[in-house]
C-alpha cells in the first residue's frame, strides 16, 4: 500500500473541508472495501479522512419514517428493533450481504459507496474504463459471467455489488448528504447512476459531499417481504441475481408492490413497470410470472451471463411467492 496521511476530524464541517482542500483525499469509515482497493493499487488516495469520530451512528424514528446514520454498522442496522419492525426487507438484505465479521465493520454509507467487484476493475494490468477512463472495457469480450444485463453501455458492463442498496431502492429511501452549501436530499433511485459514457462515476455524490444519513419513509411493507439472493455458494458470495420483493395484500389481492434487483445493473435496479403490473391482481403464480416477464423485458446478456435472464425471471417469481406466503 502506498503512503498516505491520516486525519480524524471531529465535526462534519471539518471532514467536508478536508475533502474540499485535497482532491486526492478519501473518506474512510469501515474500510472493508477501500483498504482492499488500496492494497491492490486500484485506488491510491494521498490522504484518508477517518470519519469514525463523527456522531452519525444513530438509528431513530421521525414522523413519517426512520433515519439511519451513515456510520451505523450493517450488523447493528440488520438487528435494530426499529428496522425489524418497520423495514424488515432491509434487515433481510443486510443479512444476505458479506460475512458477520464484515458486517461488524461495514457502514451504511460505505455500503452505498463500495465499488464494483468486476475482476477487470481490480486487475490493474488490464484496461478498465471505470478504473482508468478511456482505456476500454475488458469485460465486454472477457469472462463476463457476473456482469450486467440491464442498463450497461459499451464503456462498462459492471454491476453494483450491494444487497442493502437493493432493499433501500425498493423502499423509496432518501440519501441525506452534507456539503459546503448545506444538506441535500437525494432520492435513492437517483443516487447511483448508469455507466453511460462515464463509468468512473458510480453515483451522483459530489466530491465535497459526505453522506450523513439514509431516511426510509413509512410503508405498508412490514410482513410480505423477501430478499432472495442467488449466488455460487450458500453464503458469503456476491449475487449472481438478487430480488427484493415487497407486497401489501388485502385478502388475496395485491394492493401495493415493490420490486428491485441486484447483480444485474450498474445501479440497484428498480422494476417499476413490473410493480404496476402486480397492483390490483390476485397474488398467484400467473400474476407473478406476468410481472416477471415485464420486469425482465429489455434484458440483454453477454457471452457468459445469458443465464441471468432466465434466472432473473425465475428469481422474481420465487421471491414474490415467498413474500406472499409469509405468515
Amino acid at each position, binding site marked *: *500500500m*502506498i*503512503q*498516505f*496521511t*491520516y486525519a480524524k476530524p471531529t465535526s462534519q464541517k471539518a471532514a467536508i473541508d478536508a475533502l474540499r482542500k485535497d482532491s486526492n483525499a478519501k473518506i*474512510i469509515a*469501515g*474500510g*472493508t472495501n477501500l*483498504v*482492499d482497493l*488500496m*492494497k*491492490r493499487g486500484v485506488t491510491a488516495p*494521498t490522504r*484518508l479522512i*477517518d470519519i*469514525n469520530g463523527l456522531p452519525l451512528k444513530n438509528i431513530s424514528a421521525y414522523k413519517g419514517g426512520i433515519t439511519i446514520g451513515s456510520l451505523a454498522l450493517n*450488523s447493528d442496522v440488520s438487528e435494530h428493533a426499529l428496522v425489524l419492525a418497520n423495514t424488515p426487507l432491509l434487515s433481510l438484505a443486510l443479512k444476505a450481504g*458479506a*460475512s*458477520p*465479521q*464484515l458486517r*461488524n*465493520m461495514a457502514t451504511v454509507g460505505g455500503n452505498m459507496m463500495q465499488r464494483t467487484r468486476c475482476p477487470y476493475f481490480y486487475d490493474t494490468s488490464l484496461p478498465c474504463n471505470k478504473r482508468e477512463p478511456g482505456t476500454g472495457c475488458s469485460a465486454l469480450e472477457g469472462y463476463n459471467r457476473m456482469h450486467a444485463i440491464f442498463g450497461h453501455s459499451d464503456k462498462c458492463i459492471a454491476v453494483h455489488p450491494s444487497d442493502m442498496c437493493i432493499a433501500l431502492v425498493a423502499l423509496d429511501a432518501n440519501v441525506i448528504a452534507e456539503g459546503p452549501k448545506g444538506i441535500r436530499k437525494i432520492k435513492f433511485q437517483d443516487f447511483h447512476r448508469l455507466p453511460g459514457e462515464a463509468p468512473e462515476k458510480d453515483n451522483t455524490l459530489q466530491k465535497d459531499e459526505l453522506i450523513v444519513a439514509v431516511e426510509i419513509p413509512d410503508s405498508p411493507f412490514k410482513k410480505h417481504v423477501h430478499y432472495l439472493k442467488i449466488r455460487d455458494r*450458500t*453464503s*458469503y458470495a456476491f449475487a449472481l441475481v438478487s430480488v427484493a420483493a415487497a407486497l401489501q395484500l388485502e385478502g388475496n389481492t395485491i394492493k401495493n408492490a415493490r420490486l428491485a434487483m441486484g447483480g444485474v445493473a450498474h445501479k440497484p435496479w428498480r422494476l417499476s413497470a413490473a410493480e404496476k403490473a402486480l397492483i390490483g391482481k390476485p397474488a398467484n403464480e400467473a400474476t407473478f410470472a406476468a410481472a416477471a416477464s415485464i420486469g425482465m423485458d429489455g434484458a440483454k446478456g453477454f457471452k457468459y451471463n445469458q443465464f441471468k435472464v432466465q434466472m432473473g425471471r425465475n428469481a422474481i417469481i420465487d421471491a414474490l411467492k415467498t413474500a406472499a406466503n409469509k405468515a
Partner: protein
Amino acid sequence: MADEKKHSCQHESRRDFLKQSTLLSALAITPAAMLKAAESGWDEGIASAIEKMPLKIEVNGKVHALSVEPRVTLLDLLREQLHLTGTKKGCDLGQCGACTVHVDGRRVNSCLTLAIMQNGKKVTTIEGMAKGEQLHPMQEAFIKHDGFQCGYCTPGQIMSAVACIREGHANTEADIREYMSGNICRCGAYSNIIAAITDVKNGGKQI
C-alpha cells in the same frame, strides 16, 4: 561472560534474525528511495506521509503505547510489531476470515482495518483466550471434535465461533453455518467445527 553470550545466542529466534536482516536491507535501500522522492519534489509530502502516528491500543488486557505508519493494518500491527502471530494472514483481502479478532468485543477482519483507526480500542486475539495454562472452552472443543487439520484457519475460526455464540447466532446448525460463513477452511473441517461450537453452546458455560 562467555556462557552468558552463548545462552543469549541460543535464544535468538528465527524471527529476530529476520528482523535484523530486514533492517539491514531497509538501510541499504532507503537512501535511494528518499533521493528519488526528493528529485520528484515529493520530499515534503513523503516526509509528512511516513510520519508515524501515536497509537494507544489494548491487546489482550495489556495497554500498548505505540507509533505506527497510517498504512499499517491491525493484522500487521499484531503480527509484526506485537509479535502476536496467532492471528493468521490468509488472503489479506477480507475473504477468508483467518485474521478474525475481537475489537471492543465484536469480531472483525483485522486485515481490512488500519491499526490507527483502532486508537483507544480493546483488541482480543487468540492469544488472549486461554487463562494461563487453561484453554478456553472453545479451544478445548476444537481439540475434542478434531475441528482442524492444518490449523491455519483455526485461530480465526475460534475467534469467530466464540463471537457466534455470544451474539446468539448458534442456536441451530443452519444458524451456525450461516454465521460462520466468513471463515473459510480449506481442509474442510466444517462439520467438526460445527460439532465443537454446538458442544460449547450446549455446555452452557459462560464464554
